[in-house]
């Protein structure tokens, strides 16, 4: 008598790919025949259990959820910084930050406290103040407000000393940032302003 079927062979049996001589064994072996029936019955039971069909609205929601998650990961990932529409204004913003930091080092700190926004804004040159008014229109944008606050903290003549007559497209840059990135930028700017003067 030929040996009983192995587990692999029982699967081949229900697949219909078992060799004929091995299949013949099942006809002569009560144990293998019983196991074959069990396997077929279990398979039939398994196949009968369908996944409940979700609402038709569910499928578009899968796409929407994936799109949102992908957009979020793209916005927070390093790839976000490589986009031209972010890189160009961010480069301009970085120049302004560096310029602010240099100016704070170079210009005498004697005068009104930068921490007092009323005093600082009052001391701002008219042209720059106009830029800041634009920024303050976007008061809901914390990043712009923060940049405006810091810029307004420059001592009188600070913008002229820097040669800055027009701010880059800060709104474009700030709009492209996530909350986390804005926080990081705010921390950078704040540390530049608060850096001890040499």
């Amino acid at each position: 008598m030929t040996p009983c079927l192995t587990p692999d062979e029982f699967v081949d049996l229900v697949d219909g790919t078992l060799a004929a001589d091995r299949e013949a064994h099942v006809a002569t072996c009560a144990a293998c025949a019983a196991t074959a029936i069990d396997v077929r019955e279990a398979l039939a039971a398994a196949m009968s259990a369908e996944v409940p069909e979700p609402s038709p609205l569910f499928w578009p929601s899968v796409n929407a959820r994936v799109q949102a998650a992908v957009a979020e990961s793209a916005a927070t990932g390093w790839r976000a910084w490589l986009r031209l529409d972010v890189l160009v204004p961010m480069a301009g913003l970085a120049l302004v930050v560096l310029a602010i930091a240099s100016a704070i080092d170079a210009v005498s700190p004697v005068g009104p406290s930068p921490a007092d926004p009323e005093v600082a804004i009052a001391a701002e040159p008219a042209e720059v103040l106009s830029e800041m008014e634009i920024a303050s229109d976007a008061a809901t944008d914390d990043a712009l407000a923060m940049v405006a606050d810091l810029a307004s903290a420059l001592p009188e003549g600070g913008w002229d000393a820097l040669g800055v007559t027009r701010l880059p497209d800060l709104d474009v840059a700030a709009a492209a940032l996530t909350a986390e990135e804005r926080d990081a930028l705010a921390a950078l700017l704040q540390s530049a302003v608060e850096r001890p003067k040499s």
Partner: protein
Amino acid sequence: MRADATAAPWPLGATPMSDAPETPLDDAALVEAAIAGDTAAFDVLVTRHRRSVYQVCYRFVNHHEDAADLTQDTFVRAWKALGSFRGQARFSTWIYRIAVNVCLNRVSLKTPKTDAVDFDLVADQREPAPGAAIDAAERQAMVRAAVKSLPPRQRTALILRTYHDLSHQEVADIVGTSVGAVKANVFHALANLKKRLEPLV
């Protein structure tokens, strides 16, 4: 569709692998576009494969909300890993692999909620001939719960082979094992299923 040409189809129908509007672009072209940053191309891939991925996830956790979360996780991971997709395997095989990994991670992290019915309650209501009187929906729910209760390797092999019309070789590629191991897992899954569904089968 089947890589293993010698394998005969299972006796009953299986889940189609794609669920998508017809588009002239095949998966490989869409993947290429997605890697270049075309999120619309990736959206087509999601549409094409969302049903089969959801069904794999549902079979694993037997719970709609969890399956929906796992489906989302699968596609987000796929998006992040697109750069590593070299096209040696079909995208469908690749996305199944990610789905299985996501599901196995979830299974190892927690015991998810389930939509399953209570076996004892159903059995008690149907004395003295429980199997005969249970309606089709309850029976299916019991089978799904039994599948979910299988050990992870057996569950994976049974789900991919039985419900998604993948060949043993494809399943082996997805789970990173041999064809023999896949067949053994399918056999033991069916044997365990038979025991757990004894009143019904």
